[in-house]
């Protein structure tokens, strides 16, 4: 067995891993939030049957381990449906659906938090159901949702580390590789951990700014 010291090239490797992690996180966030929002709209229009199916599926996704979902998609689906599944596709699919399930719950409670009286006012003034969703409910639901959503996304960023298990070369996988080569687990995992930490902090800071912008109409009046 050959052991080797850290080299400057390891930084490039680290950057590549970080790129994969952030790319996957960004893609699954976009897909997940879009899907979660679409499901919320379906729920808002009380589409029969579909509403119940959506709730059932999201309950399954929320209440089972992401790692198990990942194994089901990566190993189970190709075996059962005879389809090809690359690690990246499996990772995208699993994390997107998982984000969508939680985002759906957050958006739905955001919609439910909007005061019914205003919606009655909008109906009386002749606004259509779509206009009410678009102009009255969505902006307020977004403001209510952004706090919990940032919490969710910070968590989903950590969850992406699970995809290293099926062979996606993300930040954690790079950590694994460096660790096996250098046998310096303390240094490697400290650096990897700190990198996740900094990304999460940056995400939370961005989210905080967005939240302040969306809630600008709300005056903090003290307790």
């Amino acid at each position, binding site marked *: 067995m050959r052991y080797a010291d850290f080299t400057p090239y390891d930084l490039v490797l680290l950057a590549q891993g970080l790129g994969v992690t952030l790319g996957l996180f960004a893609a699954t966030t976009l897909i997940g939030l879009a899907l979660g929002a679409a499901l919320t709209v379906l729920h808002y229009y009380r589409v029969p049957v579909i509403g119940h199916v959506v709730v059932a599926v999201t309950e399954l996704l929320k209440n089972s381990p992401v790692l198990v979902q990942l194994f089901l998609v990566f190993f189970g689906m190709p075996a059962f449906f005879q389809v090809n599944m690359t690690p990246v596709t499996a990772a995208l699919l699993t994390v997107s659906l998982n984000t969508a399930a939680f985002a759906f719950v957050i958006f739905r409670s955001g919609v439910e938090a909007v*005061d019914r009286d205003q919606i*009655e006012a909008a109906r*009386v003034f002749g606004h259509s159901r779509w206009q009410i969703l678009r102009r009255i409910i969505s902006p307020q639901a977004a403001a209510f949702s952004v706090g919990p959503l940032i919490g969710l996304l910070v968590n989903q960023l950590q969850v992406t580390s699970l995809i290293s298990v099926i062979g996606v070369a993300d930040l954690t996988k790079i950590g694994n590789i460096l660790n096996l080569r250098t046998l310096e687990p303390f240094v490697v995992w400290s650096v990897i951990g700190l990198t996740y930490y900094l990304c999460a902090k940056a995400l939370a800071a961005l989210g905080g700014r967005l939240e302040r912008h969306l809630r600008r*109409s*709300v005056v903090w009046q003290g307790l």
Partner: protein
Amino acid sequence: MIEINNVEKRFGSAEVLKRINLKVEPGEVVTILGSSGSGKSTLIRCINGLETLSGGAIRVDGNDVSTAAGLAAARRRSATVFQLFNLYPHMTVLQNVTLAPIHVLGQPRAEAETRARALLDLVGLTAQADAYPQRLSGGQRQRVGICRALAMQPRYLLLDEVTSALDPEMTGEVLDILARLAAEGTTMVFVTHEIEFARRISDRIVFLEAGELIVDMPAEAFFSEEGGLAVPRIRKFLSKMTKD
């Protein structure tokens, strides 16, 4: 004309409105009085289509509110001011007032804003156009509520206990504006507990008791010994309401 014919409303087994008949002609101010729970607000909510009727019919200028097309037409002819204002908190005062004119009536934004600013001037809120509702006092919020309704250029103004959530000073601000609108000939259906004010501005007074319309008479008659005061229930109601 608003025509209310044999209107019934039930919530489960509770009969909230029992065969109500009422006509409101253009230019009239009709005040609906009655104790809490007598069905006054429900009647307003039936006129603007927030409640579906259990029986009877309501027509606003001939448009039956129980059909989708009729309700849409009726809603364009009337506008409601609410007890708890029901403003959109995420929009500025100006946005609150222009939302329906732009998106329901299809007015160009610039035109809607010019009209809205003129209305806000009228009620003394020129400086608050770009403030959010949370920054305003209750009386100011209700004045925005009135502007939002007037911006729709309604033929009929439905007012549902619009001063019940306000203190006496703010109540005064709002009533002054309503008195001015009444004097200008605005048609109003006015649910209120402000007896003295109702007496001053109303053409007719209607009294609801446990979902029944027991009296419908001109305002002077309602407050006269041989008219409304001859009805024991109304005498009792008025003495209670004017005592405190």
